[in-house]
């Protein structure tokens, strides 16, 4: 609120509680606090909160975050992408095919894969815009098309569905560490030496910290969150994203290039999926045809927990990131707490339902509907 607004005596002060309730991030913030409280109480001794444990759920959360940022901006722009999971599998497989089977330098393999994924994202968007079909149908088609190719291609050329050897191929490459490397190794070494975090006690790595750096996956997640948040809230393009999802016709009447916005958001979602895939491939050293299964739904659930409306026009990148954090913490926390892992799905379903109901209520408050 600007100063002029505060100085106007005619303006009724809105209760700060109500204003707080209107934040899209509310659900994410409450959920994050609840989840951490729960696991701090019930799984504190399980190793979940030592350096290794924190890294463990941070990596899983970061994976969710990377795809959630893309899905979030796209959902606010009024569209869905159900092909994210298949795109992850497809991108990973492309890197393996170019880098291992064709033996091209890994950086070329990565760059070409990014170009292919962005083109596929643009194609998704183009079809949605041109046909006027719901994006959920168009991208559902790509879910199957891309997954099919991801299985077919390695089967045909290598007679298997997992292609390994990427770590060797990436040895000495300049681009691969940007996705598979780690940073701040020195800091962790110092922390280990100072006895603040655990170190290996014997073996070849004796004296080295158990956690020897922050994986680039987490760095990517943070960069994408900051980028997405700034883009959405601080730029004119961000205003166009809200407008395109809020009411495409009204936005067009006001001169917003709705088609361009939507296609770019499909491309951004594809970009995020490709980042995810590249990090994963570099970490595992292999590409598998079943990678990224169901990720599209997990991304959408994280976004909805983060307060975005399924109908578009409203949401928050920070909220989506918190939704992803809740996901990562619960998925790994159940493991640490020794709970049967299948219950994670029950949790997902319950929290999704709760989040959607909460969002509907918040929407009514914002728009003043009764």
């Amino acid at each position, binding site marked *: 609120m600007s100063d002029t607004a505060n100085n106007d005596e005619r*303006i009724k002060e809105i209760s700060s509680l109500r204003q707080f309730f209107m934040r899209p991030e509310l659900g994410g913030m409450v959920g994050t606090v609840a989840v951490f409280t729960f696991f701090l109480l019930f799984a504190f001794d399980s190793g979940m909160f030592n350096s290794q444990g924190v890294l463990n759920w941070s990596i899983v959360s970061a994976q969710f975050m990377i795809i959630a940022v893309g899905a979030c901006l796209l959902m606010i722009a009024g569209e869905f992408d159900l092909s994210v999971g298949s795109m992850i599998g497809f991108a990973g497989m492309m890197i393996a095919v170019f880098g291992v089977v064709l033996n091209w330098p890994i950086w070329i393999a990565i760059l070409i894969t990014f170009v292919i994924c962005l083109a596929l994202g643009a194609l998704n968007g183009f079809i949605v815009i041109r046909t006027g079909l719901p994006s959920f149908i168009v991208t559902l088609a790509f879910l199957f098309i891309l997954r099919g190719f991801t299985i077919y291609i390695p089967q045909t050329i290598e007679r298997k569905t997992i292609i390994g050897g990427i770590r060797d191929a990436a040895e000495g490459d300049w681009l691969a560490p940007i996705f598979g490397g780690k940073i701040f190794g020195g800091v962790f070494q110092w922390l280990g030496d100072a006895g603040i975090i655990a170190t290996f006690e014997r073996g070849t790595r004796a004296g080295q910290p158990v956690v020897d750096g922050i994986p680039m996956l987490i760095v990517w997640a943070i960069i994408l969150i900051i980028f997405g948040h700034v883009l959405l809230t601080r730029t004119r393009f961000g205003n166009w994203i809200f407008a395109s999802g809020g009411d495409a016709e009204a936005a067009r009447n006001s001169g917003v290039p709705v088609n361009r916005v939507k296609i770019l958001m499909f491309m951004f979602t594809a970009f995020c999926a490709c980042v995810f895939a590249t990090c994963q491939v570099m970490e595992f050293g292999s590409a598998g045809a079943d990678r990224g299964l169901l990720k599209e739904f997990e991304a959408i659930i994280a976004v909805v927990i983060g307060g975005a409306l399924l109908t578009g026009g409203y949401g928050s990148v920070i909220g989506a990131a918190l939704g992803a954090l809740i996901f990562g913490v619960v998925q790994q926390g159940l493991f640490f707490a020794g709970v049967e892992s299948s219950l994670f799905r029950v949790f997902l379903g319950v929290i999704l339902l709760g989040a959607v109901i909460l969002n509907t209520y918040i929407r009514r408050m914002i728009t003043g509907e009764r």
Partner: protein
Amino acid sequence: MNSRTEHAPIIQMKDIEKHFGAVIALAGVSLEVYPGECHCLLGDNGAGKSTFIKTMSGVHKPTKGEIIFEGKPMNFDNPRDAMDAGIATVHQHLAMIPLMSVSRNFFMGNEPTKKIAGVPFFDREFADRITMEQMRKMGINLRGPDQAVGTLSGGERQTVAISRAVYFGAKVLILDEPTSALGVRQTSNVLATVDKVRKQGVAVVFITHNVRHALAVGDRFTVLNRGQTLGTAQRGQITPDELQDMMAGGQELAQLDDALGGTV
């Protein structure tokens, strides 16, 4: 009134005809609008009001006739051309997004930017300040620039749309039945807005089929019936009953009016 006629009209529509296939929607309509006047365009459903203003705002090209804008003949290819020239239309279907804040709506498509380290950012401070200023000018009390448009009443939304058009340089403001879906108090708010805009020197074309709304703010009144002008009258030279009769085409309504006890 007399002082106004000394100025040149900002827009002149001369003998506009518009045919859709075999249907003659407009059969030679002429109209002049002066800066700072509120020109009411009245007519019953199907009289050709919508077609006429769509011709004025560049949606339709006239089959025959001439549009002279600021003294020059104009040929608008599309609404964007007309908008750029300074002819803005506020439709019943408003270009407003309920979930977005007033200031984000106000600047939608025309966002101000501020460069930080060479990167253009949305200048929210400026947008918020201008929005609050403009809204206060129109007599709307916002809780804050971040209040969602969805919380505003229909009349307030019309006012936001009108002041947005004026802020972005509208010289001719076409209001397409702005009061048709509003309650009494909201209607009077919108009419007050129209009055304020007119006093800023904007030419307002006010389309309505409600005679009382027209008489409340209009300087001149043009009645359309079956694609033709039934004449333009000055304020004070015509009674509400006469206007009503002209709109409905006379006789039948007079009888109906009697039957209903003068409530139409």
